[in-house]
């Protein structure tokens, strides 16, 4: 590929949006517009003839490199199949507190955990594990959170009362096999 085509490729790859021809031309102030269009043609040809997973297209007044349609399905499938996501320790602890103390406001959770939980609450909410159940009567009437039916479903619980009581929990958690001495 010519140096100009390589420069265009790098810019098209890095840009946050499709790039209009005029902007592409600014990449190399010495290159005449004709050279830029020729380099674009060269890049497009290269992707097509050489056989690439991507193609160069002109859409909505700008140029962009796009994944070829024939591969999008495999990519989406792979994203789905990618290993199930785990919750962070912070998210788990917050969820545990909400499960046992619902309805509970953000300030009370932060009081227990000693850290800001804004981001964690948002992500638990997006995952559908918690929901806003109302507002408390306190100053500013802060939002109260509780667990959702999906939460119960996820842990195969019929209702919240199936969660072990805190004192039973201590025993259950210690029941791990003790290392042989």
């Amino acid at each position: 590929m010519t140096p100009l085509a390589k420069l265009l490729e790098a810019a098209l790859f890095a840009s946050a949006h499709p790039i209009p021809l005029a902007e592409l031309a600014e990449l190399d102030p010495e290159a005449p517009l004709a050279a830029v269009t020729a380099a674009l043609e060269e890049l497009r040809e290269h992707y097509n003839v050489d056989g690439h997973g991507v193609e160069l297209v002109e859409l909505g007044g700008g140029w962009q490199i796009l994944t070829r349609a024939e591969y999008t399905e495999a990519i989406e499938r792979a994203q789905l199949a990618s290993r199930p996501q785990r919750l962070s320790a912070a998210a788990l602890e917050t969820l545990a507190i909400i499960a046992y103390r619902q309805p509970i406001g953000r300030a009370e959770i932060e009081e227990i955990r000693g850290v800001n939980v804004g981001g964690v609450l948002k992500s638990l909410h997006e995952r559908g594990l918690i929901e806003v159940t109302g507002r408390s009567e306190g100053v500013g009437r802060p939002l109260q959170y509780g667990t959702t039916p999906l939460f119960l479903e996820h842990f195969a619980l019929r209702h919240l009362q199936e969660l072990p009581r805190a004192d039973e929990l201590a025993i259950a958690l210690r029941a791990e096999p003790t290392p042989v001495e």
Partner: protein
Amino acid sequence: MADEQLTLPSPTGEAAFVVDLKAFSGPLDLLLSLIREEQLDIYDIPIARIAEQFLARIRTLGLNDAADYLEMAARLLRIKAQMLLPRGEEEAWEDPRAELVRRLLEYQQMREVVDLLERRGEERRNQFARTFVPPDAPPPPAPLALSLSELLAAVDRVLRAARRPNVHDVVSRPLNVPGAVAIIRDLLQLRARVLWTEIVNRDAEPSFVLSTLLGLLELAKLGELRVHQPKPFANVEIERDAAGEAA
């Protein structure tokens, strides 16, 4: 990164001046650069001299308001005083500088890693990753890998970590739907319209919340009331159903 500049009010109340803390990333950094400038042996620091220079430097840099630097200055003066004490038995003598030397070496070692990170970071900064990713429909989220034992382990962590370990016990209390139904009926006798939060207060037991919810659904099914939520997350309004009443 936050701009690490402190604007310190001058003690005389004159124009405030700005101290550029960026010149040194901390007292150990300043100390090391003094040792380097003077070409001193880190294992045999002339502590009186270095303490004096340290103090002079934080004065000229205007760092004397920065607690971290002051703390180091005090430490140096302490070591200086200890060095002056009679040593007594030579074998039992512990060099009062030992801890400082250890910290300086540790710090220097860390600075070496910083140099490496800086180099690698700079290389990476000079390359762009893909930023324009054409808007596809977001794929459904990957399934969540989360077991009950993990959740319970988290509860345990919270219980042990909480300053006041007052996580409520979930009491295995049977649901009392008839009781909740009675409460709701009583309330609706008094008023044609009540709010969810008037029935269930914020520290209600989960069992009561659930009982109330089931009771409401039951009464709605019987046509005795209507449940209405004006918008998502809004308070739930419960109204006596006139039609149901008549029936």
